[in-house]
């Protein structure tokens, strides 16, 4: 299958996964393995480098690209400070910007996210901003140097699927950096849907972490993402209003005049 390039890295897998909400950290290495993912996000606020057992980084294999996120940041300035701290702590130079000033719906603050993208991209970070799917905001993030743009499919944790479909499709069509659908993906078919739409990748956490068997669910997502991507590359057949008979009424016209 075709590969995905983000921030100079060439990725085989188009499934990114999150590490929050799991019943135990010990399950995370198995989930990473069965998902086939190469990029794993974790909240920097949960990283405890002083405790080997409690440190989430202990459970992430070395060949995985770390995508620390700025969860907990209420504005651009806090996101920038958390990102710098992540780099200083040895989490690499990728960062998912999460600026949330609404604790009720956990919807991202696009304006502050744009500001943080500007600062961090200039400082050499590979910046992946999490955002509400808005075309002008996405364009500004792209201009500011975002390596990819991550619109939400539905409010985080809801498992409600690609409810923002029309708006995400516009971003896919108009934004030049990869679009990674993040948040709201509740089942493998939702992931496949995003991929069929032309999203370059998806990020999944809640749907895997809170399922009864996270390891198997991660594999299911991996397969769905591959299926969706293959379908996109093969160009889906057109949809029609009416059923199309296999011997259409006008078929005789193709048989040549006799």
């Amino acid at each position: 299958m075709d590969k995905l390039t983000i921030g100079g890295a060439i990725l085989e897998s188009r499934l990114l996964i999150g590490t929050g909400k799991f019943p135990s950290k010990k399950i995370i290495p198995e989930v990473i393995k069965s998902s086939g993912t190469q990029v794993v996000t974790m909240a920097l606020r949960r990283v405890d480098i002083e405790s080997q057992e409690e440190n989430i980084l202990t459970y992430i294999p070395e060949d995985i690209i770390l995508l620390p996120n700025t969860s907990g940041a209420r504005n651009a300035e806090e996101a920038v400070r958390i990102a710098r701290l992540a780099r200083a702590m040895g989490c690499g130079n990728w960062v998912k910007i999460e600026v949330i000033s609404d604790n009720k719906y956990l919807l991202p603050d696009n304006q502050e996210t744009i500001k943080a993208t500007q600062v961090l991209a200039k400082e050499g970070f590979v910046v992946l901003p999490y955002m509400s799917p808005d075309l002008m905001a996405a364009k500004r993030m792209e201009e500011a140097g975002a390596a990819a743009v991550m619109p939400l499919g539905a409010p985080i944790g809801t498992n409600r699927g690609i409810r923002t479909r029309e708006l995400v499709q516009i971003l896919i069509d108009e934004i030049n950096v990869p679009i990674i659908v993040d948040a709201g993906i509740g089942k493998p078919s939702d992931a496949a849907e995003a991929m069929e739409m032309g999203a370059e990748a998806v990020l999944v956490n809640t749907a895997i972490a809170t399922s009864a068997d996270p390891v198997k669910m991660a594999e299911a997502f991996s397969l769905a993402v591959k299926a969706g991507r293959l379908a996109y590359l093969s160009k889906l057949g057109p949809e029609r209003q009416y059923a199309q008979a296999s011997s259409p009424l006008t078929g005789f016209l193709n048989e040549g005049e006799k």
Partner: protein
Amino acid sequence: MMSFYDCYLEYNDLDFENFFAQVTEADILRILRKNKITEYEFLALLSPVAENLLEDMAQRARQLSLQHFGKAILLFTPMYIANHCVNKCSYCGFNVENDIARKKLSLEEIEREAAAIAETGLRHILVLTGESRKETPLSYIVNAIKILRKYFQSISIEIYPLTEEEYQEVIEAGVDGLTIYQEVYDEKIYDKVHLAGPKKNYKFRLDAPERACKAKMRNVNIGALLGLNEWRREAFFTGLHASYLQNKYPDVEISISLPRIRPHKGVFEDVYLVNDRSLVQIMLATRIFLPYVGITISTRESQRLRDNLIPLGVTKMSAGVSTEVGGHTSATKGDSQFEIADKRNVAEMKEAILAKGYQPVFKNWLQF
């Protein structure tokens, strides 16, 4: 300037008994199917009728908790640094008239205590004092916080109510969370149980969480001391208070504690009993009304109950608790505020949470 007091007055004259009499089981089932429920629907979930549908409520609450918080429980422990108190609260062991061993930790003792707690892996600490601006002035608390910063990633305080400027000062020093209970929302009972002392000022305490929000506190944890009044009313006003704060200060993480009165030094007779079933009903109704709000359960509750509450919407639990001043290290401890029920240490709590299929979280913030 609007305050939660206006909100309290709006509902205080409501005829609760009459309202409850009209709630039906069909109403409850309908409410459980809704995405967002109103204040009156919240009250319906606190009704006697809703008690018949606790399992349905539990299923809904569990689903909402998983969505918002996943399978994760944050662990913390309280650290009592002083028990001097000038208040006369009829229900509290620190009551100025109680003849107990009073103690205030020196900064060196605080550091020893902090090191001992941090050794257990905890990164979130809750600092407590009694209310005595003379014995434990803000400057003392600020100095304590500066020491605790070296050992902990998240510092919350549970002390006497401060002004907005004072909240800014402690935030500046490294505090990110405030816990303050109104104890009882009913103004008349409040006046009755707070016999003397600055705590008699109902409104100054009621507005303390809001002042902290204004000062940009990250986490604000409120609650009513269950047992001082009829619990349905108190749970209702606690939920309304949390909702008021969250709507007005959307970037603050609001949490609710559900503390029940525990045995303590001194005698308090007027207890309204809150049994386990009622405690569960409060928790479920609160979770369904406020899916995004944190719920804290302390070691006031028994091991068995705490373990069973985990899947119902708890987000924070204390562990390895001592309510004595210097209880983690000191040879001469100050007397405790109340007796704890769940005496498990941090490692045991961690195993218990894992056994329930949940992840114990030690660190959910960072000093930066």
